């Protein structure tokens, strides 16, 4: 299936203000969000509930109107357009399948509205059902399908109209864990196949990591960080991002110097050179962020550590150690044949400073 066109999305300083129904106070649900999504790109809006990610998505779809700012689809301003006039198709959290129609009619709905001829509709629907591996299910009613199948019908229904933009509102949150992993791979595969631009909302960081070209981490209505999954994971811009995506350890100290992206932090009397974002000044309180799998224990190393928890997990040995006042969690993969430390042991923390980020 080829796409008719690829269009990017631009959010130009978008804000959405809501009123708290109880306190009557107004607050920013989305606060000055600017985004430039390239045609064909898969972008995930990631954040805790209430961070404004779904509101942003619904503004792109047209269900909500922004209070400040302009939304562009390709070159066109779309603020004033109603959802039915926008070239977007959304997959809803609860699928929102039409319960009074069978699979075929659900998928054909958008095509009928676009005035396609009967045989064209048949052809397109069958092609898309093939793509989402639902061949032979056309005549089933939607309540005769499993969760994963319903999900694929919803995907097919959105895909078949070949929208410039596909919108996903936590489409996998109602599925069980195994199916979730399987479906996110499929969504990614199909999106790449049809080439539509995709905006995907989720609060599940591993989903965001595995599926996206670019992740936009949101918190309290603002963008906390934007970048590729690798950037977000290893070079988080703040402790919020670091802790929201994966597990993070912090060795707290003081920033000594900063030269470009190279910072030097002093932790427990040791100076460590690592990557640092340029929003800090020497003398500031800072912390060296390290991922649990980037750290190991040894008989010699950078910093002394006292083991407070040691637990064999099969794939890895799980340690909690105290380095000064800092609790550091360690996942030491493939522990067989390595020296295992017990609770109460003194050891040394070993890591490669380039794996860490000074925050």
């Amino acid at each position, binding site marked *: 299936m080829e796409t008719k066109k690829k269009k990017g999305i631009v959010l130009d300083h978008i804000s959405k203000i809501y009123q708290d129904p109880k306190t009557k106070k107004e607050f920013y649900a989305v606060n000055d969000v600017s985004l430039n999504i390239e045609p064909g790109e898969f972008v995930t809006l990631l954040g805790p509930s209430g961070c404004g990610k779904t509101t942003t998505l619904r503004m792109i779809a047209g269900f909500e109107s922004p209070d*400040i700012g302009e939304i562009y689809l390709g070159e066109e301003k779309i603020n004033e357009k109603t959802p039915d006039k926008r070239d977007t198709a959304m997959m809803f959290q609860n699928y929102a399948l039409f319960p009074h129609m069978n699979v075929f009619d659900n998928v054909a709905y958008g095509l009928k509205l676009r005035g396609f001829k009967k045989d064209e509709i048949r052809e397109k629907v069958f092609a898309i059902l093939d793509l989402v591996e639902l061949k032979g299910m056309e005549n089933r009613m939607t309540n005769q399908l499993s969760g994963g199948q319903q999900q694929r019908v919803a995907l097919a229904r959105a895909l078949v109209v070949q929208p410039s933009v596909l919108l996903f509102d936590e489409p996998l949150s109602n599925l069980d864990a195994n199916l979730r992993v399987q479906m996110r791979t499929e969504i990614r595969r199909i999106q790449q196949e049809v080439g539509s631009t995709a905006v995907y909302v989720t609060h599940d960081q591993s989903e965001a990591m595995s599926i996206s070209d670019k992740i936009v981490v949101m918190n309290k209505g603002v963008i906390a960080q934007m970048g590729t999954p690798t950037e977000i994971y290893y070079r988080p811009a703040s402790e919020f991002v670091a802790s929201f995506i994966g597990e993070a350890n912090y060795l707290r100290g003081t920033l000594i110097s900063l030269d470009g992206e190279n910072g030097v932090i002093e932790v427990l009397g040791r100076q460590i050179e690592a990557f640092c974002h340029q929003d800090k000044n020497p003398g500031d309180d800072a912390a060296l962020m390290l991922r649990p799998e980037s750290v190991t224990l040894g008989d010699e190393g950078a910093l002394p550590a006292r083991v407070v928890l040691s637990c064999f997990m099969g794939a890895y040995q799980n340690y909690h150690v105290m380095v000064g006042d800092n609790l550091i969690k360690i996942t030491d993969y493939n522990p067989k044949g390595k020296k295992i430390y017990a609770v109460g042991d003194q050891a040394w923390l070993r890591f490669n400073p380039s794996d860490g980020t000074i925050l």
Partner: protein
Amino acid sequence: MEAKTVTPQDYRSQSKKLDRKKFWNDPILIAMIVIMVFFLTLFIVYPLVMLLSEALRSSDGHFTLDTIKETLNYVTFKTAFFNTLKLGLIVGVTSTVVGMLFAYIDVYVKTKTKILAGLFNVVATMPVVSPPFVLSLSLIMLFGRTGFITKSLFGLRTSGIYGLTGLIIVQTLTFFPVCYLTFKGLLKNIDPSIEEAARDIGASRMKVFTSVTLPLMLPGIGNAFLVTFIESIADFANPMIIGGNYDTLATSIYLQITGSLNKNIASAMALFLLLLTMALFLLQKYWLERKATATLTGKAARGRILIEDKGVRIPLSILAGAVSIFVIGLYVLIPIGSLFNLWGYDYSLTFKWYEYTFASGGAKQYTDSITLALISAPITSLMSMLIAWMVVKKKFALKGYIELVSMMAMAVPGIVLGIAYIRGFVTGVFHVAELFPRGQAPFWTLQGLYGTGALVVLVFIVRSLPVGTRNGIAALRQIDKSIEEAATDLGANSGKVFTSITLPLIKDSFISGLITSFVRSITAISAVILLVNPRVNLITYQISESANKGYYGAACAAATILILIVYAAILLLQIFTKYFGTSRYIKREE
């Protein structure tokens, strides 16, 4: 999300402006709103406003309070007003008590057989399917001047049943099933463990009922009381047939109009009746209804241990069973009554009353009633679904108005609506037809409407719209908004969403609205009795005429045929929903 105070205050103006633009880009929704507002204004608000203006206007067109003053000093009015209130209060209490008794037995008492439950079921459904005044007819046939029990069995020539006593009996038996159904729902929602806790501490069963169950249900009881109160004071047909000299507001208004007495006073009296029902309705809707839902939430966690104690079970069962059998007997008396030569005098079997009902007016009364009800039913049902949809799913400026007016119509007594229509349409809208030579008023004055079946259809629609809308709203609240959003997102405009998604999803509600409005229309009398004329005849009118003339056989025969028609319609509904309904595949979302 942290609350952050926004300055300046009007930052939200852009989204408001955009929402407005999007609204104006939706011509179908706008068209629907315009049509609904126009209809509700012209056929509900306008006639009632005319009623108000008649009551406040002197004969030469000036504002005056004279009519109001005159009415307030008018003995007929004063008597009727207090009669109405007295009747309403008594019936409100008796219906609530009987309804509570039935509900308590149904939910709390272990009955040995299913017979009682079956009886309750019949008693609860009968008032829905029968014309509003058949119980009066039956009661007169048993206890009236030529009553079977009073005259034929005991040889009494008494008219004791006419008046307050008869009215209380008839209205209680007609209205208590609604209370029963309400209480049943409420009682089922009380968590048994609350009551068990009270018993466990040492409260007797009676103490539990008075100190736990009753207080929990208090708002619900108040609600049921007010609903019955409104029904009672709005009732026209029963006071007309069995009221005797006990005049209520509804009957007095009718007599003022038909007796060619003072029409302005009739308007003023109607206005007072309207204010009364309206006040009670608002009280019920905005105060008690909210309270009722606030105290009782959620379903009972598990089953209730039913009362098996013989000392409680047997007397309660006998009492409720006797009432049920009496009520059912009264209904059964209708077809029986139609088969005797002359009730009270000659009990030989005959079919002559059936021939008589067809001979007197031909079949016209039947065809008229059926045709007009058939025309109004689909319009009513569609309109109520549309209003429900706009109220639940859409946002627009006049939404509050549409919701309020369509719900308020529920509180307008039929007779008030009838007189308002006369005042509003006899001489055209705003009396403009008076400006033209007699018989030459142009179409737009709507003078031509008066005396036609079209006006009767409009009355039918207005009378059934609130019930349909309420059911539609309940059905729509069950449908997740994302289903409609998905359709919009795929490119469907408002009209398309309604016809291809919403309406099919609430098809059950639509079909039942169809039948409900058909049944309500064909059994209606109070709202249309003033609009009946040689061109438009209705069965209900014929039945009440026959009853008033003492032709009980004829009244019974016509009522029997009417009940059969209604039953046929309901049967049709059941078949329809079974084969075309949506409940088979819609998984209701919580």
